[in-house]
């Protein structure tokens, strides 16, 4: 017995932290990969309305349309009338079809005919603007739309 006891030292061996950087790097890479830096530069005000009866958006097959008043820094140039934005620039309602077809072509080919149009519209916009957009979408035969909202409820805020 004493033989064994002899070997045992009283000091705890230091924990080997050599692999710690590797672990941390793995986490780092994970977050770097999943991070999506905002892909569209917002040119319009975009406070989304609240709703709680919602469905999730499938991102790979969606085209975004933004609408709302121009952001504060663009208001001198473009006024305060609500505008539509697709991609990185303002689009006129008459030009909507062209811009949408262009945006659709950026998607994967096999998903192009199952496009979902995500409408990110500022809550202070008039419904008329949205109706105009919807009419254009119908003419383009892009019938699946989703009104993007933020969680919440208008009634009890």
């Amino acid at each position, binding site marked *: 017995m004493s033989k064994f006891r002899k070997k045992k030292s009283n000091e705890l061996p230091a924990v080997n*932290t050599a692999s*710690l*950087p590797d672990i*941390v*790097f793995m*986490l*780092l890479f994970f*977050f*770097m990969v*999943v*991070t*999506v*830096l905002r892909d569209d530069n917002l040119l319009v005000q975009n406070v989304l*309305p*609240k*709703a*709680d*009866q*919602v*469905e*999730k*958006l499938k*991102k790979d097959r969606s085209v975004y349309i933004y609408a709302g008043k121009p952001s504060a820094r663009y208001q001198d140039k473009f006024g305060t009338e609500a505008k539509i934005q697709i991609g990185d620039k303002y689009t006129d309602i008459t030009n909507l079809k062209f811009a949408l077809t262009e945006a659709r072509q950026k998607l994967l080919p096999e998903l192009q005919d199952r496009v*979902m149009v*995500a*409408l990110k*519209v*500022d*809550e*202070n*916009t*008039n*419904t*008329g*603007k*949205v*109706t105009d957009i*919807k009419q254009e*979408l*119908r*003419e383009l*035969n892009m*019938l*699946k*739309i*989703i*009104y*993007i*909202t933020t*969680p919440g*409820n*208008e*009634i009890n805020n």
Partner: protein
Amino acid sequence: MARRATPEVNAGSMADIAFLLLIFFLVTTTIEKDKGIARQLPPIEDIVDPPKIKEKNLFIVNVNRNDQLLVDDNLMELKNLRKAAIAFLDNGGASNGTAEYCNYCKGKRDPASSDNPEKAVISVQNDRLTSYKMYIAVQNELVAAYNFLRDRESQRLYGWKFTEVNNAIEEGSYKGNEEAVKPKLEEIQKLFPMKLSEAEPKKSGS
């Protein structure tokens, strides 16, 4: 000069550097989950013979430019809309014995209101100047009414909630046999089909 052995680089601070980067990405990451109310737009086609809908089967929600609600010719607050829609859909006014009789409805069975959920149509009319906020709020309440009734029926028939199972399947986190559940979901949808119609918004007076 004598060559000295290069000392080993001290990698002790590597972890700190990596941590710093990690924390930066943790903070800036917003895993975007866009959620919203999905809709299917009607295709453009000339309807030669529009189906006739009896007035009692129509639930007309009218929103004016001041965001006020007019439901079947009565002013209504937004918070009462859900209840009114549920009452309308769940009414089941067709009399017992007819083909249209709704045996799962729990409403008042008022003959002056909708015959059955199959027939009941909710029609929303907006003014062009209605705010989008109000528009979404109304849509949300109406979808909520359908969801409430679907939940009730699935609870009664199968013991689970329609919306919960539907969401779980969509997120891929449903524990159980998806294939077996899907026909049941469709069954529930058939009991309360979502019939939301949207009229072309009226031009505003000024």
